[in-house]
């Protein structure tokens, strides 16, 4: 039976097609830039859901994991990323006290590593850019900015795929814990 999974690397390739590295002269295809930004965001989002569900269902088969990945909402990922960024000082410090104590214990090592911090900041940037791309008629997507956004998504996907630390497991696990069991 054929399968058509959502693959982050393939989404990044699609973003590259929509806004290629090499182009000729002429007016930039702004609509294609919007779709490239949105597609790049989804690459990062699906890379994160794959790891989050992998932490929660370590021995689940591929079909189970694919189904459960649909339960992870965009806001679930964004919430955890805001906690991490807030604790790193790169977002508003409105981190719940129990999350602060959990991730940065007053008398123990931090559970946030540099990779998670870059992924969190990167995801939040992509999350905002995707909303602009999909909904904001006044947003401007230059070629350089669109290429930079694709580059950021590629970096986030790479870091997410390679992350193997205990801190990374905490990060992915928290995303899984934010998700709710759904009927879909």
């Amino acid at each position: 039976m054929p399968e058509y999974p959502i693959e982050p690397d393939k989404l990044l390739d699609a973003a590259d097609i929509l806004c290629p590295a090499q182009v000729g002269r002429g007016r930039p295809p702004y609509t294609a830039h919007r779709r490239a930004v949105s597609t790049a965001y989804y690459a990062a989002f699906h890379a994160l859901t794959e790891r989050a569900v992998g932490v929660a269902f370590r021995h689940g088969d591929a079909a189970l994991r694919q189904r459960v990945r649909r339960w992870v909402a965009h806001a679930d990922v964004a919430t955890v990323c805001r906690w991490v960024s807030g604790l790193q000082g790169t977002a508003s410090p409105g981190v719940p006290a129990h999350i602060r104590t959990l991730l940065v214990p007053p008398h123990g090592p931090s559970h946030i590593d540099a990779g998670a911090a870059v992924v969190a900041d990167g995801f939040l940037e992509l999350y905002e850019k995707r909303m602009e791309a999909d909904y904001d008629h006044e947003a401007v997507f230059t070629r350089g900015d669109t290429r930079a956004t694709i580059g950021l998504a590629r970096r986030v996907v790479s870091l997410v795929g390679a992350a193997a630390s205990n801190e990374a497991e905490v990060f992915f696990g928290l995303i899984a814990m934010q998700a709710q069991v759904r009927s879909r």
Partner: protein
Amino acid sequence: MTEEDGIAELVEFAQSYSSSAVAIKQALVSLDENQDGDSVTRVALLLTEPHGDTWEVDDIIEMRQALRRRATELSLPPVTLTLVAESERDAIDAFAQ
């Protein structure tokens, strides 16, 4: 500090930001609300032309983190960037409108 003061300080910080790879020629900052209804600080930066199709990922990550950290210190909402190369500088005028 008022929001206007914070915005002015963030503009000043951005325009004085320098790294070996990226130079900011102009910065425009405005407060807005995103599709979720959350406040955001939109920052448009006119940058020196990249060597290739865009700027190095690590340089932009470093610059973004510096701006996000400064915005947090100034009690401004999270920063989202729009990068504009000098060859596309018409776009920065669109942002300013």
